[in-house]
């Protein structure tokens, strides 16, 4: 990709600028950090176009934003399970089986979302799970929080998605996260389905909750 094109040349209908503004404004600023955007708005814009052209036909700027949000949550989950499983003694029995199955799902979700985003995909952040991957009790409790947050995050975003293909993928993932949530809650011994109507979370609610964990220690950047 040429680095010499201007944003205006690429962004004939203003969609990329709109996406970058949105990123800069309310939704991701607190999470991804304003410095990244200030230095990288154009790089992000170029990457968005590359991703759209290659594999996300029909995706709007909002869709791209939602996909990168989802990708960040999936990276977080994937890394959490991978690290817990990397410690041979941390998990056993049904907790270990849960982690193995769910890790493979989160890997598939990451791959699918990255595939759609192409060069527009955010890079994987660096994580610090504060010891919660090191013993089974802390692992289970954290997994339960992450999974239910994931369910409510997808629920909140699904009605905002504009491209049908992306909506279908999000729906297919949403209920798998719900299965994970019920599974780990059943292992812990708390009601796997605690409410008749699951309450959605907005993007900023989820980002604040994730930020509060301190699990993400470095800012992701657009890979393009």
């Amino acid at each position: 990709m040429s680095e010499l094109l201007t944003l205006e040349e690429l962004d004939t209908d203003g969609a990329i600028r709109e996406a970058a503004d949105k990123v800069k404004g309310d939704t991701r600023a607190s999470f991804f950090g304003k410095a990244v955007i200030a230095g990288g708005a154009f790089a992000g814009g170029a990457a968005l176009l590359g991703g759209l052209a290659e594999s996300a036909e029909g995706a709007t700027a909002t869709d791209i934003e939602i996909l990168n949000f989802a990708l960040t949550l999936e990276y977080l989950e994937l890394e959490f399970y991978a690290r817990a499983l990397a410690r041979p003694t941390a998990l056993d029995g049904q907790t270990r089986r849960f982690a193995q199955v769910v890790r493979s799902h989160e890997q598939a979700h990451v791959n699918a979302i990255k595939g759609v985003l192409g060069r527009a995909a955010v890079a994987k952040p660096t994580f610090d799970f504060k010891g919660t991957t090191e013993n089974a009790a802390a692992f289970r409790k954290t997994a339960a929080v992450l999974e239910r947050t994931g369910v409510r995050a997808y629920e909140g975003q699904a009605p905002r998605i504009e491209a049908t293909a992306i909506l279908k993928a999000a729906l297919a993932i949403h209920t798998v996260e719900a299965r994970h949530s019920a599974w780990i809650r059943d292992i812990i011994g708390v009601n796997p389905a605690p409410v008749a109507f699951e309450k959605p979370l907005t993007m900023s609610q989820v980002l604040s909750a994730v930020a509060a964990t301190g699990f993400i220690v470095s800012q992701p950047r657009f890979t393009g």
Partner: protein
Amino acid sequence: MTEPLTLEAVDRDGALQEALEEIAGSTRTAFLKKAALGGGTLALGGLLAGGFPALAKAQSPAQDAQILNFALLLEYLEADFYTQSVSKGALSGEPLRFARVVGAHERAHVAFLRNALGAAARPKPAFNFMGATETQVKFLATAIVFEDTGVGAYNGAGPMLTKPVLAAAATIVGVEGEHAGWVRNIALKNPAPQAFDPLLSVATVTKRVSPFIAS
């Protein structure tokens, strides 16, 4: 037919109201209005084909009502299944706890959909569970089919709903996913057998549930 339930009657702790306000803001009113409008259209079309809708890709309030009525059929099926299973007395331990908790959810979903559909809401059919409410093993196997099918049905219909109705349906489908994961774990089956849940067509869902519908 009883009076249509109010949202307040269904939503005792206000969580649903709050959720709907949060997701849809002013659109909840639009959703209920649209569903009611769609219901008018449905009254004509809904009598054919036993209420299994032929869906178009284009979203419309009329189609929303058709889909919600199809969802209502599935929720009636699940609610009746759990209510009968609990009353037959064949369940104990975690399967009994599951049937009680999930039965209450399905009844709340029925009430929610009936409330949204108003006069267009289909009546509850008679079901025949073919003995599945009478033994714990059959109960669990059938509950897995119903919950997995419910998940796939809502997911399959999702892209055909208008956005405010999709937002409302999303509050239900995640719960169906939790039910599916839970009952599979009880039955010692993989609670999450695939990384992506299938999006089922109306035809597939109809094929799975038709044997249980007696009238």
